[in-house]
């Protein structure tokens, strides 16, 4: 296999079914910098995946178990040649102190069956700059470019990260569990705003019916205010027992219905356009932030005549002028 920086060769190998080439491409994608840019350029004109499904929720609610089941069902085995039909990206937080991470989602994806049927990649969030909004979209483009049709992105629902999922996925499944807590917690965490579908997992446990009822009531309350007149999608609330596979087929059917709705109402293309704008905006901000940082570091003594606001405006003028 070709090593390192030749994206075209790696793309061809991964399209032909090389797991190793695809693994390496994702590494390039998530490493950022010039090699990721070159890879992105090499993919211009290639199709993206047909469908990107996000699964978000608090740690421990059963996202990985559910993801394994959903992915296996969607893959339905392995194509005779080429890349698998379905891929999973499982994102976990990096330690803010050390930058390290334990990526333990794979061990919960027992329902996957044969590990060759689905391409699974664990990803660390690596902080804000290279995180979900940075690395995941390009990794998703890689998967689509080599022929993967469906990408499932699992992200842990902590703070900002969970809201970023809307900038990555076509269809967002918000997961909670009967044991984890009630719908109010899900609501506080911002899950209801990003969810196209809601799933109460661990329905084998006490409290699932209560959680479903609470969620439906919150959606009732929300319908009056949050949804405009042309909004015809109300997030369905489903229950699953991911460990046993119960309700998983129904969840997938409901998600498929959401995709059909996106297409029928012209929203799929619009969502994707919005996401691309978001990514462009994020990258523009990153570039500007870098330039600003450099110029601020190069400022002379700062306690002098100018106020911080005046000095900041001068920095902005310098950045705009592109000179000194």
């Amino acid at each position, binding site marked *: 296999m070709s090593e390192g920086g030749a994206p075209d060769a790696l793309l061809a190998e991964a399209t032909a079914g090389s*797991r190793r080439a695809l*693994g390496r491409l994702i590494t390039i994608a998530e490493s950022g910098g010039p090699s990721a840019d070159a890879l992105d350029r090499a993919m211009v004109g290639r199709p993206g995946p047909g469908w990107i499904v996000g699964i978000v929720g608090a740690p421990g609610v059963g996202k990985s178990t559910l993801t394994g089941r959903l992915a296996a069902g969607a893959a339905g085995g392995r194509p005779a040649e080429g890349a698998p039909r379905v891929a999973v990206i499982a994102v976990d937080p990096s330690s803010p102190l050390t930058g390290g991470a334990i990526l333990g989602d794979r061990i919960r994806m027992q329902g996957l069956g044969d590990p060759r049927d689905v391409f699974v990649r664990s990803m660390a969030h690596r902080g804000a700059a290279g995180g979900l909004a940075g690395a995941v979209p390009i990794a998703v483009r890689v998967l689509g470019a080599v022929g993967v049709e469906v990408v499932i992105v699992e992200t842990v629902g902590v703070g900002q990260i969970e809201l970023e999922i809307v900038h990555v996925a076509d269809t967002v499944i918000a997961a909670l569990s009967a044991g984890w807590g009630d719908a109010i917690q899900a609501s506080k965490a911002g899950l209801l705003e990003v969810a196209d579908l809601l799933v109460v997992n661990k329905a084998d446990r006490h409290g699932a019916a209560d959680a479903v009822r609470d969620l439906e009531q919150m959606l009732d309350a929300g319908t009056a205010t949050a949804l405009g007149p042309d909004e015809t999608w109300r997030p369905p609330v489903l229950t699953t027992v991911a460990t046993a596979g119960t309700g998983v087929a129904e969840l997938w059917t409901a998600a498929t219905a959401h995709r059909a709705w996106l297409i029928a109402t012209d929203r799929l293309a619009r969502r994707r356009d919005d996401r691309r704008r978001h990514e462009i905006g994020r990258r523009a901000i990153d570039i500007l932030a870098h330039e600003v940082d450099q110029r601020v570091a190069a400022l002379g003594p700062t306690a002098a005549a100018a106020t911080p606001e005046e000095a900041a405006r001068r920095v902005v003028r310098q950045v705009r002028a592109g000179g000194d």
Partner: protein
Amino acid sequence: MTPDGLPIRILLAKLGFDGHDRGLKVIARSLRDAGCEVVYLGLRQTTESVVIAAEQEDVAVIGISMHNAGHLTLGPMMVQAVADAGLDIPVIIGGIVPAADVPTLKAAGIFDVLGPGTPLETVVATVHAAAAAHPGSSV
């Protein structure tokens, strides 16, 4: 960290059907605290499932834990499976391995053997050395 400033990705797994993975979890946390990204496969893996995960995850190092005295068969089998897949990924073994068997394992291509009670700094240093010895690990 690799020379290009990215975290080292290491896969940790236990081969065979024995036991628990308490020790392996301790190692996983230490490596995370040392800045590594640890892809944790846990118990009951086969050489094949480890190789497939290593390809998909593009790890720089494979760490295998064994406690059932199967190291003389499983260790070389793991190295062979990695080589058969055309991968250039060093394999480190952790677990109870009699000192007399260590040269045999190294001769079979195992990068290093870390017994119980190996100081965590040594574990981390060995992983760094293994990653550095693996040229394909950086992009």
